[in-house]
């Protein structure tokens, strides 16, 4: 009787293998820097930190659940039309996310504009469905989706951190945690003393443009591959 219970719950197991599904995409198999998936949105939305965090959460929701549903249906999807079926699942989830953001976080929705819709064609979603969910159990696919979108989120947060602080002098602008760190002290939200040691800095407008994300991403890749030398010969 008890054995039966354990077997029933074993599909929700969270052992070493499952933990690897989450940790591996954060460094060794990062979707952006190693698998080259989902680069478009990583470059376009990262001019500020708050929208890129919202974007990462939206991607997490979509990837995890589309992986889960596709994996549930994987034995019933004929292989000729699998792309259409997957796209319908993804488009449904993205529509849910878009309506949710539009209702509860309108300024961020406005800022992300077409990029929420573009989660449909975010290569991470499609890539993980094809590479993982079509061949694995629902629970594992769900974890794989979470791991990959965390790997994506880490890169987004790092890029947007540098772009926002160097381009605008603020951090998390637009969110409740907004702070202004560098630049002229008269623009500070929390009015600190005039003797701010970073007041000489004037904003670098290049950092606001998407071009800057290219260079920051290249530097991240350079550092990652110098540290983790087994990644060097990948594409």
């Amino acid at each position, binding site marked *: 009787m008890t054995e039966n219970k354990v077997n029933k719950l074993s599909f929700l197991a969270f052992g070493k293998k499952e933990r690897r599904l989450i940790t591996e995409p954060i460094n060794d198999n990062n979707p952006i*820097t190693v698998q*080259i*998936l*989902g*680069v*478009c*949105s990583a*470059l*376009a939305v990262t001019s500020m930190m708050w929208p890129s965090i919202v974007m990462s959460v939206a991607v997490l929701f979509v990837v995890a659940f589309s992986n889960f549903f596709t994996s549930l249906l994987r034995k019933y999807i004929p292989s000729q039309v699998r*792309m*259409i079926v997957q*796209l*319908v699942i993804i*488009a*449904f989830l*993205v*529509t849910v996310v*878009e*309506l949710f953001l539009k209702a509860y976080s309108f300024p961020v929705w406005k800022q992300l*504009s*077409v990029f929420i*819709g*573009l989660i*449909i*064609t*975010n*290569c991470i979603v*499609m890539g993980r469905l094809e590479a993982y969910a079509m061949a694995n159990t629902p629970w594992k696919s769900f974890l794989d989706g979470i791991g990959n979108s965390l790997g994506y989120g880490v890169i987004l947060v790092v890029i947007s951190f540098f772009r926002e602080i160097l381009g605008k002098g603020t951090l998390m602008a637009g969110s409740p945690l907004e702070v202004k760190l560098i630049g002229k002290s008269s623009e500070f939200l929390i009015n600190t003393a005039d003797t701010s040691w970073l007041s000489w800095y004037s904003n670098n407008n290049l950092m606001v*443009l*998407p*071009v*800057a*994300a*290219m*260079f920051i*991403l*290249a530097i991240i*890749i*350079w*550092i*990652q*591959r*110098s540290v983790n*030398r087994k990644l*060097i*010969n*990948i*594409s």
Partner: protein
Amino acid sequence: MLDFINTFIKAAFIENLVLSYFLGMCSFLAVSKSVKTATGLGLAVIFVQGITIPVNWLISEYLLVETGVFGIDLTFLRFILFIAVIASMVQLVEMVVEKVSPALYNSLGIFLPLITVNCAILGGSLFMISREYNFSQSVAFGLGGGMGWALAIIAIAAIREKLRYSNIPAPLQGLGIAFIITGLMGMAFMSLMGIDPAAFFTK
């Protein structure tokens, strides 16, 4: 007519989908290793983009709005319908390419069906909506956007072919240097900002 030319030039050069919005980066980076395959994919993108954007314009103008055929607001179906149009158009292109040029079909391989999930295609349709283009503008935007994408991928493929002979630090090789080049190309294209094509033609 002036409107058409204006939108076309804007979409192809000034607001280039790859180099100023960074859409369609995945296949842009993955297929840009040789000029020949890059050209094939570029042509396919021009075709798909040039057809799907006007078709999607017709759909959103006549089917999805309250004043349309069904008389109810169906804008929440936008994503699903757009992606269905794109997927079927890509299927069509795939069949045509397979019949007309089997060699190109083989060299493009998996990347032909993957045009469906190329952000530039869906992004073009969504930009067309958010910028409220009319029909002739959307035709120009489709063709121009596709042309701009093809131009960018052919240019970077040519640069990457030459890069094979240069001495780049090992961790920066491949992906890293491709990002830096794309960034530099983006900066070069930024110099076209502020050009007003309409002013040129009215003089």
